[in-house]
């Protein structure tokens, strides 16, 4: 592998990992703070991609689709929390898994009724459609670079929100002692709603950003969900920064696995997960 193909693969790995992080961050936050295992989280990624498809068709531009899609995803997230997930906080994990698995089926059926079962594509914005030439034959698509930049921005924003704002302090405090937070006059239910909606928005944004480079298709949430769970477990359940490191690790394992050991590409990710868990059963940044 020469230096430029190595560079291309590295950029691909980072971009893929960062996209996974968008989905996994919400999964790990909702699990770490509210204690909910949400199998339907991949559906929010799918919903994002379909929102991108529908809204890009309507407005003619992916950027408009994102501007409209984010508040829509937030509203959907808040409504789902208020109507369904709020009832799961005190239930055991089996009940959570059953309800959220049922939700996947409902979401897929809704998608089928609303948009049908065809595979769709979403055009990328014109100004991001070019590529950067690296040598005579290799070039790197500007859009993929843009995804990475946006994801890094979102990761920094999430870091700032959780580590530097009062809302972030309340969120962290709420993951430790819900009663105490309430006794200080803070509405923990509202905090939970915000966290859930935030997780939905991050996953949906992942789907929106990915729409132009991967087809918008039925069941697209499934694969992402499984990989996101791998990321969450590798990073340490509940740890957002663990999820970031885990996502990048999985991004590299998957991308370079396909290049270096094409015959084993399918298992590379799981080998990495097994190796990490043998070394640190609680995950990279887990609390044990």
């Amino acid at each position, binding site marked *: 592998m020469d230096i430029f193909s190595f560079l291309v693969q590295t950029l691909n790995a980072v971009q893929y990992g960062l996209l996974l992080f968008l989905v996994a961050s919400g999964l790990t936050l909702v699990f770490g703070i509210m204690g909910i295992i949400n199998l339907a989280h991949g559906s929010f990624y799918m919903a994002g991609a379909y929102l991108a498809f529908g809204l890009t068709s309507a407005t003619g531009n992916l950027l408009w689709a994102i501007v409209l899609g984010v508040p829509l995803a937030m509203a959907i997230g808040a409504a789902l929390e208020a109507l369904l997930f709020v009832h799961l906080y005190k239930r055991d994990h089996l009940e959570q898994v059953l309800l959220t698995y049922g939700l996947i089926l409902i979401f897929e059926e809704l998608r089928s009724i609303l948009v049908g079962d065809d595979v769709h594509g979403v055009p990328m914005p014109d100004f991001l459609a070019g590529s950067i030439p690296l040598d005579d034959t290799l070039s790197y698509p500007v859009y993929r670079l843009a995804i990475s930049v946006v994801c890094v921005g979102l990761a920094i924003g999430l870091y700032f929100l959780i580590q530097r704002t*009062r809302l972030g*302090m*309340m969120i*962290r*405090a709420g*993951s*430790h*002692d819900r*009663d*105490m937070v*309430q*006794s*200080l*006059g*803070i*509405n*923990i*239910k509202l905090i939970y709603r915000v966290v859930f909606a935030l997780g939905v928005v991050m996953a949906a944004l992942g789907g929106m950003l990915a729409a132009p480079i991967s087809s918008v298709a039925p069941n697209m949430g499934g694969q992402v969900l499984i990989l996101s769970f791998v990321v969450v477990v590798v990073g340490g359940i509940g740890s957002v920064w663990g999820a970031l490191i885990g996502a990048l690790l999985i991004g590299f394992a998957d991308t370079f696995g396909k290049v270096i050991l094409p015959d084993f590409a399918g298992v590379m990710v799981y080998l990495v997960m097994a190796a990490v868990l043998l070394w640190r059963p609680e995950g990279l940044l887990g609390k044990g």
Partner: protein
Amino acid sequence: MSDIAMREDLLVARGLHTYYGASHILHGVDFSVKKGEALGLMGRNGMGKTTLIRSMMGLVRAAEGSVQVRGQEMRGAATHAIARRGIAYVPEGRGIFPNLSVRENLEMAARAGVDGQRNWTFERVMETFPRLSERLGNGGGQLSGGEQQMLTIGRALMTNPDLLILDEATEGLAPLIAREIWRIVREIRLSGIATVVVDKNHAAVSSITDRTMILVKGQVVYDGASEDFRARPELIQQHLGV
């Protein structure tokens, strides 16, 4: 005393009954504390002091009775709504957030009081608890027991409450540190904030409170002036001695 008797009620409970599952813990408790009043709540272990406080805070559901905060019925209301009517609760075991720094523990709680008062600012808490100002960057879990207690009291004050409830604030602290806590409680009381103090040390509690209440098996067996309580050692022997 007579001065306090005429003040407005802050927190009043009437006929509270609370159960944990099938066990009946509170048997019709009447409780009240007025603006600026200092109340000592006493009773042996397991008599229901913590349960009474948690019932009034909405942290456990009282099956029967009423809880009024500043004249408004709050039984069944959310805990945060009750706290927002001017009550700060420092629980048994302190309730520090170990995953937040000392500074964050304080900042996350900051708000104006019910009447918009902002007497307690971060700076004033630092002046009151100089030891905390040296440990602002530490995690809440890294503090000693005494420092943690100062942190929870400081955090409660950041909400600018009208009433501060301290449940076993000196539990497990060395006598010297406990004395420091009592000094601070006295200072808080003098600043006009009403206090409810639960503690094993009846001498200390009755010396800094206006009124004393004793709970036995979920019932109020004594409710009188702390002066009167001090003059009746048989109360201690009968209801509080071990």
